[in-house]
């Protein structure tokens, strides 16, 4: 497949605006400026693209909601707070192809009649910060940003804001709070950001990868774009593959590619040709799949039918040697550390889960611990303020669902050791 999102990234100077233009960049913007803003919204809607951040919400619909709100000014925010463990798909765009993102944001800004845009970059991407800032500066110099873009009377100002290292700020309302200078915690919805977002004004927040798709949609048209990948969930998708594979990395593949294909074909199979034990297909919050469940099409529509979710497309591969109880403990420890503290079940419950898992993993678990863990996680599920707590609970639930025997073994071994 032709590379769209990762186009030209082998070029060591790919982040430079001249290289980007040489490779055909900013043409989509020129084309877009010929259209009316509403037509672009319509085109994006028609393309069927779903947001690449993890929830898979139809991007065009989000745009249409914001466009329908008369309040001004509107804001376009890029969610570059790529913090889901296992996920590094946006990083090549941010570091190697920043102008694709910027072009996507300019087109989005024009479509939404937004005059201000912000890229909310995760705190742990220091290299990307410098690259993005340089790219934004170049875009201003070339007249792609500013008060009168390419002399067409279109206005967009763009700046890069670096987060301080909080997973929760990837949640869009927490991101807005953080951008406003407040403590990063999710807001009550409704009102949704499309109506009352940044500074209480209509705001569209899109993932880096989503925005990077926009120029291509404009370039080839919605119909051609919709023909790529899965019918209900089209377009190219970036998968960040990590763990026990021969060739870990970021792969650009059509939506709907099978998980097996990603692991065994594109990533070269399991490291040292060991046996596969389990895969987390879309970042740590998505349900773990056992080795025999990897014949599933990787897209937002089909993955739930196969017991998991596409999430961010972060494929984490575990071979037969992996201690999954430890993985589960480590995952929950992450969620505890990142719980913003706003709501009771997540703040207190996830810490409790971590404590139980710490016991089991450390060999001092007792017979009732697995059931207690399930009960505690059930008491979190569906009762939290935002999906973070749910994600933690579901992670543990699915680990136990598929690999309960490993948990039991740990507890039994531990009690045998203690008895001896």
């Amino acid at each position, binding site marked *: 497949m032709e590379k769209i999102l990762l186009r030209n990234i082998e070029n060591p100077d790919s982040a430079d605006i001249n290289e980007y233009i040489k490779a055909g960049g900013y043409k989509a913007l020129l084309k877009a400026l010929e259209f009316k803003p509403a037509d672009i919204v319509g085109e994006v809607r028609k393309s069927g693209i779903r947001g690449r951040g993890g929830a898979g919400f139809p991007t065009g619909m989000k745009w249409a909601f914001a466009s329908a709100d008369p309040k001004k000014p509107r804001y376009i925010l890029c969610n570059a707070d790529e913090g889901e463990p296992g996920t590094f798909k946006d990083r090549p765009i941010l570091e190697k192809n920043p102008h694709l993102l910027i072009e996507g944001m300019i087109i989005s800004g024009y479509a939404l009649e937004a005059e201000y845009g912000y890229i909310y970059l995760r705190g742990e991407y220091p290299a990307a910060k410098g690259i993005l800032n340089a790219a934004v500066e170049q875009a201003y110099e070339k007249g792609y940003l500013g008060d009168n873009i390419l002399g067409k009377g279109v206005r967009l100002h763009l700046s890069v804001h670096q987060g301080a290292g909080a997973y929760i700020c990837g949640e869009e309302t927490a991101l807005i709070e953080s951008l406003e200078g407040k403590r990063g915690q999710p807001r*009550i919805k409704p009102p949704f950001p499309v109506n009352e977002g940044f500074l209480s004004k209509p705001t569209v927040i899109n993932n880096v990868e989503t925005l990077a798709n926009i120029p291509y949609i404009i370039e080839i048209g919605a119909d051609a774009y919709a023909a790529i990948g899965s019918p209900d969930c089209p377009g190219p998708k970036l998968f960040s593959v990590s763990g026990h594979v021969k060739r870990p990395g970021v792969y650009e593949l059509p939506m709907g590619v099978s998980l097996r294909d990603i692991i065994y074909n594109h990533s070269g199979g399991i490291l040292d040709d060991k046996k596969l034990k389990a895969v987390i297909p879309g970042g740590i919050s998505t349900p773990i799949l056992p080795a025999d469940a990897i014949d599933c099409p990787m897209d937002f529509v089909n993955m739930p039918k196969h017991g998991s979710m596409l999430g961010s497309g972060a494929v984490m591969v575990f071979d037969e040697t992996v201690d999954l109880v430890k993985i589960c403990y480590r995952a929950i420890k992450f969620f*505890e550390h990142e719980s913003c*503290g706003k709501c009771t079940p997540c703040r207190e419950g996830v810490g409790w889960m971590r404590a139980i898992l710490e016991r089991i993993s450390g060999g001092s678990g007792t017979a009732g611990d697995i059931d207690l863990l399930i009960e505690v996680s059930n008491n979190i599920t569906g*009762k*939290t303020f935002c999906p973070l707590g749910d994600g933690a609970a579901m992670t543990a639930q699915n680990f136990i669902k598929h690999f309960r025997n490993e948990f039991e073994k740990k507890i039994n071994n531990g009690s045998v050791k203690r008895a001896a």
Partner: protein
Amino acid sequence: MITVTINRKKINLEKPVTILKAARMAGIEIPTLCNHEMLEPFGGCRLCLVEIEKMPRLQTSCTQYVTDGMVVWTETEKVVEARKAMLEFLLINHALDCPYCDKAGECDLQDVTAKYGPATGRFAEGKRRHPESFDDPIIVRNMERCISCTRCVRMCSKVQGAYAISMVNRSSKTFVEPFSGGRYDCEYCGNCLTVCPVGAIMSRMHRHTYRPWQIEKEADTVCSFCGVGCSMVLQVRGNSIVRAVPRETGGSNKGLLCNRGRFGYDYVVSSGRLDSPMIKRDGKFRRASWSEAFTYIAGRLKKIKEDSGGNSIAGIVSGRCTNEDGYVFQKFMRAVLGSNNIDSVASFGYAQAQRFFEGIFGQGVTANSMRGIPNSDGVFVVGGDPTAVNPVLGLQIRAAAGKGVPVTAVGYMPGLKIFAANRPMPKPFTETALLSAMVTELRNIKGISGKGLFDKLIKDIPPVSLGEAEEVCGVPSKDIRSAVDALSRMTNPSIVIGMDIIRRTEGQANLLLLAALVSLLNSRIYLLSELPNEQGLTDMGCLPDMLPGGRHLTVESFRRRYEEFFGVDIPSSPGMGIMEMIEAAHDKKIKALYVMGEDLVYSMPDSAYVKAALSKLDFLVMHDIFMTETAGLADVVIPSLSWSEKEGSYTNLERRMQIVRKAVEGKGMEEWRAVSEISRLLGFNMDYKSSGDVIAEIAKVSPLHKDITYEDMTGECMWPYKGEPLRHGISLEDIEMPDKGSLLKRPEKDRIYIGVDKPLFHFETLSRNSEALSSIAPEPYMNVGKALAGRLFLAEGDSANVSTAAGSLKLSVRVDPDIPDNSVMVPDNFGDKGVYAIMQWKVNSALKAPVTDAEGVTIKKMKHAAEEVAV
């Protein structure tokens, strides 16, 4: 119409509310912890989860709004289990030290756990540890009890606007901390204490002294610290006040208090309280019986009246006295002693301002509900920081700003710094120039018909251009212009006026300019009132020319009414005001002064002058709760009751009448009772058994207070009550038109001016007796601007001498960049270390008010003790 069904109960609603509100309206209980009436919904504790048909997940009823046809269940198994789960979660890291915790018995977490929680918990790990913090003198923080509901943080930021505290850290390590670290650097309003549902933040003032169920009595009363008159409850155990808490509904404060009201009450148990009448003979006080003291006072007053006439006797009443005290006192002065020489500190500006505006716009023009401020479309503030003088009124201005209402704050107002959209900072005491330019501009924009009497007057105000004003006051023309533009767009603004703008050489011009603004903008007026009953005293006729009910003494029909009622004649010409009395005492024109509770030496400029004047009197009677500097000069001192020890009523700056109730027994006597006793000894029968008898008489004789009873004062008792207000015709004869020169008076070159600072943490000189307030702000200080500090090589914490011709003070230095250059601000609350100790006596003869704007000072940095030794 929206119909929602909760637990089979149909509820009809006019407009959408949250499920929680709808349920409460229908008497259905849903437990909550993070929700609070005074705060926006938060949705954090998850205790109020309910089941909604057609919605897969449980929803928080505090955030979910009802829709038509919605069916809600609050007691299904799923909901009950979820609640139990949330409470189990909340308790895993909660200290559960209820036997030791002061909150036990009124703890929301304890209550909901008892009712909805699981009987046992399954958490086997160690709880979070977080040592209790005693870094602050007033507030103790115990973060092991905190349940992260964030009610305190939301109160502090969204309602109080102090932004002093924040949630810190994440996950179960979350806790609340002041930005300043251990000790709070905040406004000490304590409103966080009101909303904390557990024992995480508590007052140290009553730590471990009682349990909530041991409270023996609750007195529903009003605060005695300023003219807002917040309604509050004094909780009593064993004849001592253990705590002051706000009443959640009613009053003007709606559940809010400030630091003074919440913590300052402890002055009543201060060790210096007087407990017996004292008579001074041969320069020495000795204790006397009540009857001995009264007989002595009656005898001396009788003699002076016989020898020198009633006009040689004068009376001053404190703004902390009740309406009943004020009424009886003015009756005593007029009917018994035959003197109209009666006044109060309300005449340090408040009474004059009110009279001025009423003269133009009619009686009651300043009687506006504070809650109107956030509903106006613009706020203009001048003459003092409302958030310090009248803190809870100040919160209304912050609330307005929070709603996006543009606030213009003229001059040094630290409490509005982050809330005001426009902050013109005139040079010291040059607001007159600024106001003149604003009136000139607005007059052009709005146009004047010139038909009305006052319109004619506005037309005659000499025009002052923006440039001329800028040259004098230093505020850039464009800033004045933008303030004017903002004002001119308003249709319903509020103008908030502090007394500092009136205590000026150009006080009357300022009043005229403000009245012009009011007229041009069609705005409401709010007068800041520094004392709890300034308004009440003016309404009770404690003025040299006014009778109770706002009736002019010189109008014969009014006077007749009172003469008939009292059964004696009242002198027909107005008496002396408070400033004239002091001067008359100096000139030996008055022989006797009767003072009820006012520490004159330190509550007006030039302590030495006032002291000398009082020393020249033949006879000085003093009622007070402490042996103040002024009381020390008296011949007889009668111990008073503090506001918490007596019954009566106050009228606040909105002209709302409210009841003061007795919480504890005191050793003094109500002023009205003592005065009636003396009156009887002088042959004039005053037969009041209770304050109720006094108000009954007021209700009979004062047309404004017609038929008023204490029952009326339990609700919204707003002006004009059931009475007959006086709708004046416009009386403009007295208004003197200022000339252009006086509007554009420049500050003297190279002169450093001293101004009166009104700090948030103190109140008159009384608050020095409050241990709590003194622990927050123990030290007198001088506040200087950055540039001046730089020129004088002064840094924060240095000590410096500030001196005038009248004296000098050694004070510690605070540097505040907002203080206008070439000026220094010193508070008036520290007695002989206060600004009045070194300010010279100056009176505005037109307003008969003190002038505090003309004092030049020299400031000298003091060397540190160590350096001095080295030299």
